[in-house]
């Protein structure tokens, strides 16, 4: 374990916080983009938990990934209001234009496509989320424009 490893540094910061495992996992994911499965034993040791407990938590929550995501994440809402306003057409368009299915990352590592149930933006459906920004009233043309703004085209 190298002392300059970012995960090792984080382990020290969260071990004394009550219920610190979720904040720690969030911090690791922010830092390195995912939770490397080979670091689970170190996380368990630092938090005084079993590896099974740590694995159980990682696998219980949708937000934690165990492999790297693309440089950007596109989430398309598929809850009822968005579906009524055409989000299925948007899903099809995104899958086709990116050439990936939900949960997958484009070959160039640019964009990970995900589905999400309700972004809490139902009055302005259909909604998508790109990284940390929610965009409202998105049709296929607008989605193309938003993705183009990422500067990943090509």
């Amino acid at each position, binding site marked *: 374990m190298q002392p300059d490893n970012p995960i090792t540094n984080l382990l020290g910061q969260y071990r004394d916080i009550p*219920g610190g495992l*979720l904040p720690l996992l969030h911090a690791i994911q922010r830092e390195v983009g995912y939770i490397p499965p080979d670091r689970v034993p170190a996380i368990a040791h630092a938090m005084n938990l079993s590896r099974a407990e740590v694995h159980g938590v990682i696998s219980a929550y949708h937000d934690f990934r165990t492999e790297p995501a693309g440089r950007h994440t596109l989430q398309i809402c598929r809850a*009822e209001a968005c579906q009524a306003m055409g989000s299925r057409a948007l899903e099809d368009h995104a899958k086709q234009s990116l050439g990936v299915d939900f949960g997958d990352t484009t070959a160039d590592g640019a964009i990970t496509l995900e589905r999400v149930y309700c972004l809490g933006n139902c009055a302005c459906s259909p909604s998508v989320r790109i990284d940390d920004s929610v965009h409202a009233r998105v049709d296929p043309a607008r989605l193309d424009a938003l993705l183009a703004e990422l500067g990943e085209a090509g």
Partner: protein
Amino acid sequence: MSGALPVLDRPLTRNVRADRSPTDMAAYEANGGYRGLRAALAMSAADCLQVLKDSNLRGRGGAGFPTGMKWSFVPMGDACSPGHKYLICNADEMEPGTFKDRLLMECDPHQLVEGMICAAYTLQADVAYIFIRAEYHKATRLLQEAIDACKAKGYLGDNILGSGYNLEMHVHSSAGRYICGEETALISSLEGKRANPRAKPPFPQVSGLWGRPTIVNNVETLCNVHHIIERGADWFQSLGLTADAGTKLYGVSGRVKNPGCWELPMGTPVREIIEEYAGGMEEGYQLRGFLPGGGSTDFLTVEHLDLAMDYDTIGKAGSRMGTGTMIILDDKTCPVGFVKNLTEFFAQESCGFCTPCRDGLPWSAQVLDDIEHGRGLPEDMDTLQRQVAFIGAIGNTHCALAPGAMEPIQSALKYFREDFERHIDGGSCPYCDGGNS
């Protein structure tokens, strides 16, 4: 807030600006902010609780349980063993179709913080958490800023405004799990565990977070607390049109002209909300039904439009007011596909602890998928009815997720049965050219 609205007393959204920009400490205080906190600190905790009880405030997260009564189960004074007491704000707004708490937190974060300080004082809790959806980035940042501003002003921390009362407050980001909306699952998650619900009793009021007395309340509920303490129970009662007191954030989404969220008197008729505030249906679409309070409530239909939107009235009509944010089902959207989509969501969100939920919900989703795509058999209707009866019965499952998931199915079978039968008889979805199936 949108549209031309009559002038009403709207305590919860009085600081919500047209451009949705957040209200900062200076603007909040200029509009009477933190007066409720001073009023609360001048009273005893027991007196604060009595005002809350008299106000008839009911939980805005969906269940509608009287807040004062819920709080009265928390041990106080010498009856409480030494140690922490916790107040948790449930800001994990994940009910499909619900977008009211985000509005409150993004536009007026100080209102929630002040409501929480007053609530924690009433309970004599010394630690408060805001358990918030990870997706709500902006709200998370604004709440943290509001907490920091309160610490600087002496509204949080030790010896708040010289009262001798201490409170620390933290924002905790969830990691994406619908079941965290269930209070015992939320507590498990906050402890750093899988978000599995716990058996009750013991109730969290007695043994919650780390085994200590804990209250979990919804954002909108807590936003009311300081207004009630400052202005009194009679004022709060006078806001509502029916027996349920106060105002309520009502939302409408789907194919209406003006979808949105409005603070209106509790008990405003459904028709007024949909036709006046939401502008009625879009051209070319007709209302077939609506889920009155999010994805886990029973459908109501056109015949229920003149009901008052309050807990008791909607409950008597066979549904629940839930979060008060309605999802509209129009006549060009396939009800079978609509319900299937919801069921897939609930199946995905099952924590897996108990069999009826873990295995039953995917089975229901599969049956609905078969029917939607014309592969259904006549006996599938009986299968669904059996599942509704078995999974939907309270007591057969570990928590309320699966019974909630059955509510849209059972009411769709009741009100839209001919749609299911047309899929089965015709061997295809009659709505397919509508693009929604």
